[in-house]
């Protein structure tokens, strides 16, 4: 776990350094009249100190298990798979429209993540897309995307 902790601390340290840089660029102002970057800069400094301390603490830990141990025995492949599906959903939603993309996403989630039979997958996909439409589209009046491709085709 030492490697994992060190990687995480290094990530936040890099984030902190970026924050310090951004804060300085925005302008620190003076103590009489603090500028836009004043708080960002000092929070960045605090974050850098904290993540550096975490990094040092992780270096002092015994080596322990490797980073991969965090995912041993778990279905970790599901996470990137579902993430890609969600990103594709966000990409295709304005193009293909809410009904088609939603049914497709739900069908894939039902059928491929937990391997439901076709009847459950199709029924679940249609029912959940319908329920989401009723709640958000009808009840709350959200303008759900109808799909630019259909507008172009018509």
């Amino acid at each position, binding site marked *: 776990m030492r490697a994992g902790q060190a990687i995480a601390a290094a990530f936040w340290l890099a984030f902190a350094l970026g924050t310090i840089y951004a804060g300085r660029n*925005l302008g620190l102002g003076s103590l009489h009249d603090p500028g836009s970057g004043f708080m*960002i800069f000092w929070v960045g400094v*605090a974050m850098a100190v904290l993540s550096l301390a975490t990094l040092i603490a992780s270096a002092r830990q015994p080596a322990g298990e490797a980073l991969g141990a965090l995912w041993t025995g778990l279905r970790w492949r599901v996470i990137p798979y579902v993430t890609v599906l969600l990103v594709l959903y966000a990409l295709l939603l304005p193009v293909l429209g809410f009904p088609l993309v939603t049914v497709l996403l739900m069908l894939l989630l039902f059928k491929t993540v937990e391997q439901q039979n076709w009847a459950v997958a199709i029924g*679940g996909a249609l029912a959940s897309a319908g329920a989401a439409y009723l709640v958000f589209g009808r009840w709350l009046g959200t303008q759900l995307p109808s799909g630019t491709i259909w507008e172009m085709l018509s």
Partner: protein
Amino acid sequence: MDILHNMALGFSVALQATNLLYCFIGVFIGTLVGVLPGIGPVAAMSLLLPVTFNSSPEAGIIMLAGIYYGSMYGGSTTAILVNIPGEAASVVTTLDGYKMAQQGRAGPALGIAAFGSFIAGTFAVIGLMIVAPALARLAVKFGPAEYFSLMILGLSIVAYLSHGPLLKALTMACVGLVLGLVGLDSINGSARLTFNQLELIDGVGLVPIVMGLFGVAEIFSNLERKLTREIFDTRVRGLLPSKQDWKESGWPIARGSVLGFLLGILPGGGAVISSFISYALEKRISKTPEAFGKGAIAGVAGPESANNAAAGGGFIPLMTLGIPPNVVMALLLGAFIVHGLQPGPLLMVQNPNIFWGIVASMYIGNIMLLILNLPLIGLWVQVLKIPYKILFPMILLFCLIGVYSTSSSIFDLYVMISFGVLGYLMRKFEYEPAPLVLAFVLGQIMENNLRKALIISNGEFSTFIERPISLVCLILAAAILLSPLLPKLRARRKELAVEEAN
């Protein structure tokens, strides 16, 4: 007499048909998300935040508040019948509640959880009525220095009470503060950290961040391990506790109510911690501590009362100081702001109907919950039987469309997905999301108060230690942050974290 007059005003608002309906929807959904493991009150409240856009401010906030305290009720059902806490505040209820169910006493366990929650919830509302006006009068004397120091204290407590190492929790608070400062500078109007993205001019949305960190990340964590649960498959009977049950539960309920209420007021306190402390307290003062963990009804009554009282107590700092003491209250603050209201000492003067309407609705909500939880227990048991493999795609879809509906922005979907992945990795590496979200909400307010305090004092940092309230807050914050250096206190913090994580 003032209180009676104010309560009459509050009930006249809360008893309006629309507000009653929203209160019912809130407590019903709250109980539902409390019952269902895998979706908590934070995710549910952010999902339903858009619902409040079309309603009056009081109706929307009544509903969101109902979700919060409703989930405290619902969480106990899952804890007792399935041995899985429906939400974090019911973790300790599993210890004795499930044991009672195994011994054929699921009914009294559910009954005492519901009655204890009702009594504690009512106690918290009465406390809120009495304490809030007094605290609001005091809060009028607060200047920017006091507000800034109080927020530092709140963040310190939240970081201290987090599961993982304190350094990591404080790092997360810093990340939250930076994220909260994205967008237009509220003092001079310049764009900050927007990377030329128009969508970031108004800042990063609270809903996509919360839905990502608490909704999507939770689903990811559940998906990678097969979620199995054994439901206690016997008809639940005899929900009314016996005389002996009441005798054993009376004082735990009373102590849990007071303890939970007081801890709920403290920034960073809240339902989870109060339930653990109540359990530890009951076990320590019990004449039969060996019975705890083996089906002691006091082990259900105390913590369940404490978490409900804390849910009520948490409204005090939000409504009187405008400072959310925990993530749930941070979401409620978001709801207030969406409706153009600023919670704080002036809320009950400028919008007495809203303030007292919300307070009165909590009385009504508690009665609704008692009615919902006892006769409808069979329905909640059926809900528990829905397999997670059917539930998770629906929860994901509602997260996606819920986020889209708040802003009609595809960009927010990417924000939610990114924070979902980040939240999942944070769990892996023991970084807590709660300090991040609370700091995110407080970021702008904190910066405003810091800059104002410095401008007013001509750039003198001593203003923060010259003002007594500010000084006390800073001393307390420093004591909390430095306390892990003392071995005994470090051990106690670890103990609390382990209890909570378990």
